[in-house]
């Protein structure tokens, strides 16, 4: 199996039924910020939902990032770790380098309809293969092995997780070492 350099992308959907401190703060604050920012495109209150707004006021597409600002510090407080996406041992959360915020849907009169996503993308990872339903990846921490082996970790495949970039790496043969 040929190793590859990959990045993974995980899409965390947050809605009214989400639990957890981070998710609750993102939900509450992004909804209030949506209410505030949407007014610029909806002064007459002709539209209730984000979908309606986008259809009739295409510039409202900028609400994705304008509302995203409102939760920027919460994402920063994650310390570069994707919430809830851990290795097979359940110990280490998957790191992310970049993220962006997306409003899936919202409604200025019904907060239950508010639904957003945070899309996290990892730094480049070395992928060695798939074992069962898990990705075998090279660990960034190689400090505890000195026998020539590479430290690895395994990551369960799961909904909302995708390989978002792929670059084949040359196999290192004994001759090429």
């Amino acid at each position, binding site marked *: 199996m040929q190793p590859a350099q990959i990045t993974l992308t995980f899409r965390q959907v947050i809605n009214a039924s989400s639990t957890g401190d981070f998710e609750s703060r993102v939900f509450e604050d992004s909804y209030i910020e949506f209410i505030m920012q949407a007014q610029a495109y909806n002064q007459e209150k002709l539209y209730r939902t984000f979908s309606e707004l986008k259809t009739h006021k295409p510039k409202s597409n900028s609400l994705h990032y304008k509302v995203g600002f409102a939760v*920027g510090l919460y994402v920063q407080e994650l310390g570069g770790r994707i919430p809830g996406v851990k290795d097979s041992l359940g110990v280490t959360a998957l790191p992310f380098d970049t993220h962006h915020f997306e409003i899936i849907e919202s409604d200025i009169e019904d*907060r239950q309809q508010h639904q957003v996503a945070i899309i996290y993308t990892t730094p480049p990872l070395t992928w060695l293969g798939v074992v069962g339903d898990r990705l075998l990846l090279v660990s960034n921490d190689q400090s505890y092995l000195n026998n020539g082996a590479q430290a690895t970790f395994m990551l369960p495949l799961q909904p909302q997780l995708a390989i978002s970039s792929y670059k084949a790496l040359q196999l290192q043969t004994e001759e090429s070492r």
Partner: protein
Amino acid sequence: MERKNFLRSLAMTAISAPVLLEACKKDSKETDALLAGGTAKTEAACIPTDPDMAGPYPLYGSRGSAINRVNIADNKPGIPLNIDITVQSVYRGCAPVTNARVDIWHCDKDGYYSGYVNDGYLGVQNNQGRLFGRGLQYTNSVGKVHFASIYPGWYPGRCTHLHAQIFIGTTLYLTTQIAFPDAINAAVYNTSQYIAHGQNPTTNYLDSIISDSLATELATVTNSGGVYNLSHVIKI
């Protein structure tokens, strides 16, 4: 009366935001007392609380916002610019409006905005995920906010400007722009950091968006030892 209408009516009669907050606290206390079976005032106890959207709107303080900050330059190069904006209430004889949220945003010295993929004289720049030139602050007891930034550049078709929005509570009161004096722009764009882009051909009077609003949208800008200071009053 629904709470949002109550808030709006207070704001329209120019009660300042701290009063709004107090009003909301009082409202909450009375509601809590009702729920707890307490002895709130008779008129309050006999009137059901109006239904409204949930959420702690009056308490929302943009606490998770990545742009709730004074320094909005994000280490972008440019001549320092202090931005001082005062918000006043027309309905109260231009008294200061306290605790209003002021959002501002402007381009960098080369005419590029954060948050977008935008094209300019240096080519296409992907500034998604970047925040430079964007900030929000809440007005203090004399209705002022302060930001530290850099003097903005320009892009074709527009005079040099800032964007601003004023919110009270969660209500958007005003979306506006702030123009800079042409003579100051010319001096800045002749300095070493800005000269590569040259002078902005769109002066204030040639800008179709702002030319008819200069009476209220032109800021005062002064130079103090190489640092520029912008002051502007927004009346709502």
